[in-house]
């Protein structure tokens, strides 16, 4: 996986002098929000972090668990990388970024182990593998290492939300197609806060295994990207 390939096509928050500062949000923050959620969405446009995206999106709850974990890591890693950016020698910046990300992921993993044990079991190897999610090191290198902490954290949040949005859509489509339910196994994430909130969209004796298996993830992902391209073309 080439984490750094995306640097070139990654739109830097330019000095948007044209866009005047409006209200509470500066034009720069606006651009960051737009980039993360839509224009440069890590899942649909940069196609980063596909491995966890495709692997754990078989149900909405699994997807939500990974989405929260990834977003948290992304915000914190962007923020910390930005804080230390002036003290990091250029030559060894990547190993340092990786160490920061790895420590954060370890924290998240321990937290999930402690508080959402069922989800921890069902996500399995994909929690520690957040370290290798290209979207995270990509943002650290491409954005956080060059910008101020506040903006970097905002960028992390927006990229994380963009990634989560794709993850959840994929999870929802695959869960409905595959087993006809939504939000199955919510207790794994929320405990007994909401109880069983499984929505049965339709009932069937036989699950559509293709949607649950990895090939289905690829096909649904392809359709999502196609839908985004159509929407962009029309706009």
């Amino acid at each position, binding site marked *: 996986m080439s984490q750094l390939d995306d640097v070139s096509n990654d739109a830097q928050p330019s000095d948007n002098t044209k866009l005047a500062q409006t209200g509470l949000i500066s034009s720069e923050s606006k651009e960051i929000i737009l980039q993360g959620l839509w224009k440069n969405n890590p899942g649909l446009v940069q196609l980063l972090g596909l491995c966890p995206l495709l692997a754990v999106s078989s149900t909405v709850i699994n997807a939500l668990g990974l989405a929260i974990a990834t977003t948290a890591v992304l915000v914190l890693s962007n923020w910390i990388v930005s804080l230390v950016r002036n003290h990091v020698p250029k030559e060894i910046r990547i190993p340092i970024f990786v160490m920061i990300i790895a420590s954060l992921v370890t924290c998240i993993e321990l937290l999930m182990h402690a508080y959402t044990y069922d989800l921890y079991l069902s996500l399995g190897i994909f929690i520690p593998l957040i370290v290798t999610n290209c979207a995270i090191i990509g943002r650290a290198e491409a954005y956080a290492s060059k910008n101020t902490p506040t903006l970097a954290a905002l960028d992390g949040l927006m990229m994380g939300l963009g990634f989560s949005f794709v993850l959840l859509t994929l999870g929802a489509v695959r869960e409905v197609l595959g087993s006809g339910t939504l939000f199955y196994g919510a207790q794994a994430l929320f405990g007994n806060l909401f109880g069983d909130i499984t929505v049965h969209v339709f009932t069937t004796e*036989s699950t*559509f*295994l*293709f*949607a649950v*298996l990895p*090939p289905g993830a690829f*096909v649904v992902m392809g359709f999502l990207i196609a839908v985004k391209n159509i929407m962009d073309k029309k706009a």
Partner: protein
Amino acid sequence: MKFALASSPFGRKMFKTPDLMRLVILCLLPGIFVQWYVFGWGNLIQIIIAGLFAVITEAVIVAIRKRPVLPTIRDNSALLTGVLLGISLPPYTPWWITAIGIVFAILVAKHLYGGLGQNLFNPAMVAYVLLLISFPVHMTSWAPPEALMQHSVTLADAWSMITTGFSIDGYSLHQIKIAVDGTTMATPLDTLKTDLGHGLTASESMTKPIFGTFAGYGTEWVSFAFLVGGLVLLKQKAIGWQIPVSFIGGLFLFALIGYLGDPDASASPLLHLFSGATMFAAFFILTDPVTASTTVRGRIIFGLLIALLTYVIRTWGGYPDAVAFAVILANMCVPLIDYYTQPVVYGSKKA
């Protein structure tokens, strides 16, 4: 006087797509007839359902793509995909499974790649593999030949089984599958594999009623009929000889090696050739002009590759038959095969 000019290849017969597709469907008829005679109405209904959904899906997608609808439908290619899938499915597969398969074949395997002539994979086989991995229970519920069945299945029964899951008298597919001796039946290849796993020898397993004279009971004649239809296709020069010959020859060779090595633990070459999808695939699936290799040497490699994959997956794999998987894997290799087997342009190389 008018001299008709046509571009190469200068075949003696020039088929237009609709004629070619119609000829292929006609040559399938002997096989379909024997399949009906041996296994009853199931597959005939599947063919109709699959064909219908195929044509409707094709029409809708072509309309969405803003292409002329009627000429596309008239080229019969969607209908042929439907017929091929209908033949391949277990006879009493629920109708919605057939529908999912054929819609996926036409929509994803064919039109998302650009339509007829652009598709990388054989649509009917993509549909078959999709269904096999998605609905393993339904897709391996093969009914035994009618002569071996405990309950007879009429046309009304078959229709009712496919649309509701139960026969007119309320028998489920599981009960229908029960043979005269009270055991449920799988396909010959599957039976042999299971028996070998249980420690029986091949010849002990072959004494079971599901086996016939030289391969599966009934299925051997279905295969034979497809062979006859395929030979007509070959005689009409609608397909080249390379793919069927290399595939059947290759499978025979690989099976023979395995059989000579350990006759007690392997299926005989004849069983390999006359059961499962071998004959049907050799002439009607592999020879798809779009997804098969296009060079002469390439076609021989293509056929041999599928033969090898089929033998390996049948012998050591987890699925009862392997042709569909083998075809899709070989389809993937076609661009590479074609690249390395381009005929040398005359004069470009010294003799």
